[in-house]
């Protein structure tokens, strides 16, 4: 007649379902207990049957018992939920990287091979997929109920989501955070393909070249390469091998050159200048779109792929005394 349970299509959904069933079982038992007690009391102690109330004003041991038992049960809920949450927050290494840009009211997905999709996302089954997401305008939220995962997509800051689909098929992609007039129209589909079909799908696209190649082209067009040269002579730091490594800032602190740092540096270069360089880089705010920023990041990331030799660098080494890298 109508569905009562959503399809389970990712490794996470089984875990969330198990927690859900546990929660229903425990709270259902307690709720039923309270309701039965209330009904029994109504029946046994109604005024016509039990005309004189007996004053029972409290029982400290009893109250302590049900408080502590409740607390104990709550801690199980907490730990179980926290366990799943931490797993959801830590994407495995070697995940398939996909970029998502959300805007009113559509989803743009960008694969590393250069394939682009609107309101659709094709992923292989049984493979860890990591989404790096950003919004061009307001807050959106990426939700695939069949995967039991969700994360807000923020303007101005990257958020991450990962999943591992374990069932082929087409699933719903919703925007879960209210985002204006056509919020309910901001729908998409997530298509989980088996390996063969996915390979076929991948080879069908990518006539533009890989996403990093797009970024490389842009890197040349915008003139980034004039300063960020691949030797030690540039006015800006050499970007080879920088991705994911700590860099020393002029302030003496160090920071990991991750997606967030690179994005911040493209849009707002003055805020965290690398030690030994002048703050001469112009801001690209309003010049590059979020998609283009992501392609630049993909390109810089591709530069980090270690060749055999140690990459040339004109950045000062990060001293041990710089302490723990600063967090973004």
């Amino acid at each position, binding site marked *: 007649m109508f569905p009562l349970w959503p399809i389970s299509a990712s490794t996470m959904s089984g875990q969330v379902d198990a927690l859900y069933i546990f929660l229903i079982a425990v709270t259902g038992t307690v709720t039923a207990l309270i309701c039965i007690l209330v009904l029994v009391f109504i029946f046994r102690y109604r005024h016509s049957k039990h005309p004189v109330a007996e004053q029972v004003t409290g029982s400290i041991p009893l109250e302590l018992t049900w408080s502590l038992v409740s607390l104990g049960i709550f801690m199980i809920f907490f730990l179980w939920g926290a366990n799943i949450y931490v797993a959801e927050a830590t994407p495995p290494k070697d995940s398939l990287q996909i970029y998502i840009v959300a805007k009113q009211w559509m989803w743009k997905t960008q694969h590393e091979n250069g394939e682009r999709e609107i309101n659709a996302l094709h992923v292989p089954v049984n493979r860890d997929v990591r989404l790096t997401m950003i919004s061009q305008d307001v807050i959106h939220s990426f939700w695939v109920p069949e995967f039991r995962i969700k994360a807000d997509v923020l303007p101005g800051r990257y958020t991450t989501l990962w999943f591992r689909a374990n069932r082929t098929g087409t699933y719903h992609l919703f925007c879960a955070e209210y985002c204006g007039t056509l919020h309910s129209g901001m729908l998409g589909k997530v298509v989980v393909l088996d390996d063969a079909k996915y390979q076929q799908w991948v080879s069908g696209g990518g006539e533009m070249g890989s996403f990093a190649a797009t970024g490389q082209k842009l890197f040349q067009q915008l003139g980034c390469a004039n300063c960020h040269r691949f030797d030690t002579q540039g006015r800006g730091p050499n970007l080879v091998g920088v991705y994911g490594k700590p860099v020393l800032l002029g*302030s003496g602190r160090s920071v990991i050159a991750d997606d967030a740092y690179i994005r911040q540096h493209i849009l*707002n*270069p*003055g*805020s965290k*200048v690398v030690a030994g360089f002048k*703050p001469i880089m112009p801001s690209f*705010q309003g010049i590059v779109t979020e998609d283009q920023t992501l392609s630049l990041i993909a390109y810089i990331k591709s530069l980090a792929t270690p060749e055999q030799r140690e990459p040339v660098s004109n950045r000062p080494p990060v001293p041990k005394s710089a302490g723990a890298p600063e967090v973004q």
Partner: protein
Amino acid sequence: MSNISQATAVSIREAVDKHSLHGHFADLEQQREAAKLGMWVFLATEVMFFGGMITGYVAYRDAYPAAFQAGSVHMLFVAGTLNTALLITASLFVALAVHAAREGRRKALIGCLAISMFLGVCFLGVKGYEYYQHYLDHKVPTRSFQWDGPDPRHAEMFFVLYFFLTGFHALHMVIGISILGFIIYFAYKGRYTPEYHNPVENAALYWHFVDIVWIFLYPMLYLVGHTHV
């Protein structure tokens, strides 16, 4: 309760203007305590009101320390310090006014309040001068905002916070000065006695609170830029 205390209570009640005691209070003492407690609860609300903006300040300063420091360089340190001194002195005279009210010295009460009002107006004058200088300097966060150094966006955030915080504070100053005006008027009319001067006490509490807000705003806004953190 002894007979003496009842007799005292009756004599006090007779001594004061009948407008001083409102019908639903048992005696002046209860009314006085209620008024004072009400004011303190109100001040707790006010603390949280500023607290929202202060939280914003802490979060953004933590995220963009360099921009905030660079923004603070443009503060008029002398004006800010002068204003701090003015407010502290104004607070002193308000405290002395309460003291005078307790002892029933009407002229001293009016005199002290008048000095406080004057100092408060001076504070606003200096504040206005600062605003004018920032306006000339293109540091008002509107379209005309200009910034030469790095990270203009977050330097502008410093000025947004500066104008919000000092603006809300100045609004409180205006309210405080007006309240002192009313108090002076009623004091002149002879409304307050050593037994009944709740409005004087409450106005003073409010004034001191506005002073405390400034005591925190001063280092937050004016003292960030001198050294390189």
